């Protein structure tokens, strides 16, 4: 593709045209979930289905992190009994899933979004408030959008 970029190129050379923010979806309560509505600014850049799939996977990963079930109770009780010192040695379940999410986002950026001139920012870097999508100027086409 004429306008293919790789992740490094994007970050160092391309100019930022605009940023799109996908906000949190609070309809299911306080759990971490992002809106899956396709932002109109991305219409010309990325396939709708692809984007929605990325968002769904992301939401599922966060749901896994915050799941309340047998395993999390066990971890909680064990932590309480050791006066929370156990977290000096091991990671919490949430932290493990956050690492998984970081890997997922990096992979999505490298495989899908960077070649299209887009960059997804890990929501944890924005305080789990938004998914920031940076749209880079597409020099091969001419105008930014």
């Amino acid at each position, binding site marked *: 593709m004429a306008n293919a970029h790789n992740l490094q190129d994007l970050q160092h050379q391309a100019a*930022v045209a605009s940023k799109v923010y996908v906000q949190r979806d*609070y309809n299911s309560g306080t759990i971490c979930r992002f809106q899956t509505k396709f932002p109109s600014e991305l219409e010309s850049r990325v396939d709708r289905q692809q984007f929605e799939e990325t968002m769904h996977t992301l939401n599922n990963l966060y749901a896994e992190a915050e799941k309340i079930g047998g395993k999390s109770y066990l971890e909680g*009780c064990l932590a309480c009994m050791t006066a*929370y010192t156990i977290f000096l040695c091991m990671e919490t379940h949430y*932290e493990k899933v956050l690492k998984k999410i970081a890997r997922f986002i990096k992979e999505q950026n490298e495989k899908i979004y960077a070649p299209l001139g887009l960059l997804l920012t890990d929501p944890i870097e924005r305080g789990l*408030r938004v998914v920031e999508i940076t749209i880079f100027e597409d020099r091969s086409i001419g105008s930014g959008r």
Partner: protein
Amino acid sequence: MLQLGVAEPMRECEYSQISTRSSTPMETPYKKRTPKKRKWQAFPGRNKFYCNGRIMMARQTGVFYLTLVLILITSGLFFTFDCPFLSVQLTPAIPVIGGVLFVFVLGTLFRTSFSDPGVLPRATPDEAADLERQIDVANGSSSGYRPPPRTKEVVINGQTVKLKYCFTCKIFRPPRASHCSLCDNCVERFDHHCPWVGNCVGKRNYRFFYMFILSLSFLTIFIFAFVITHVILRSHRQGFLNALKDTPASVLEVVVCFFSVWSIVGLSGFHTYLISSNQTTNEDIKGSWSSKRGKDNYNPYSHGNIFTNCCAALCGPLPPSLIDRRGFVQSDTPQPTPPTNGITMYGSTQSQSHMAAATPLMQSEPVILTDEASLPGRTLLGGPCSGALPLGGQPTPPTSTPNLSCDNGMLPTRNDHSEAHHHHHTDGVHHHFLTPEEAPSPPGMLPCGSPLGHSHTLQGFYNPASQDSLHEDSVRGLVKLSSV
């Protein structure tokens, strides 16, 4: 006019304090590279950090040290004077159990006080601009000087919940989050600001807070019971007065424990109720989910049964800190809005506020006048609110202070301004006007409305269009350059 003279030197002290803390950029403007700063050093909230960002507390920690001293002294006296007698006369299990309880109490206290309660980081400038655009589109063009209070409605589990826009943090607060005016942060699942632990109690440290008060109740009752046992056993042998002469420390312990028991056990009971119904202190006091508000009013966050609620609150997954205190401040790509006074900054988002700190003399006039105008408002605010704090009918915990920041749905427009007023105050000048006890105003405190009305007229001579930006940015007396 007299007050202006008094405020000025204090204001300059305030500024010089702030600028020395984060003065690296301004002292060496010619240097391209400055030593990497950690994010906690550029943190915009009113918190104190220790151990290179590992420990995070509120600004006022005096009462926390009092708590610590009381616990240490009482327990120390118990182990030194009562335990030797009791372990011989009764069983050595007593000091062991006491020791375990003591360690648990201290551990949970430190964990509550030193950890991040669930602070929401403030929006980056790009995010804030994007949100503002969306709000303007939703509202139409801005009508009049003050845009209407920004709220979003969302339906959670069948209940309509209003999400408020925080002018300081420039975000729409998630449900159950609230802005603590003492720490100047939005905190997730905000319960209250507890001066006794020197920190806010929120999503991340609520379970530690609960464990602390629960274990402290047990410890207090334990010490109380065994000190009394000690005195009684001694009195059998020697007579009451002689026994007291032999163990004078016991008297002090009994007195401290007696007064603590009522408040701490009461507080534990209250929080046990809150946990089992999955409510925060904030929500309970406002009566957000009480059936008195309407037949269909129920708590949408409750899991349905007491057991699940308790388990979720105490044993649920521990969310990570969102503010990354020990990370390094990245030099981001240059901001879209360049600094207006011509000094080139190495684009870090928080550096703009530090720039403002370093040019106090340019900003001091409007800032002083702002604070001037709010001073009379503040004293008025202190009066009616502090008088009405003990809320009738509620088992209000006397030791912890729920921080409502006038943030209830009953006085919509005034509330946003009252919140902004809280942001005006800087610690040096306004401390005695806004103690932790005076800061929250309980719902139904309509007198709070009138003093705020007064302070609005006092501020009326300001350019109303810039008032919102003044509100947002006058935290710690730092005025954003764009409003000048």
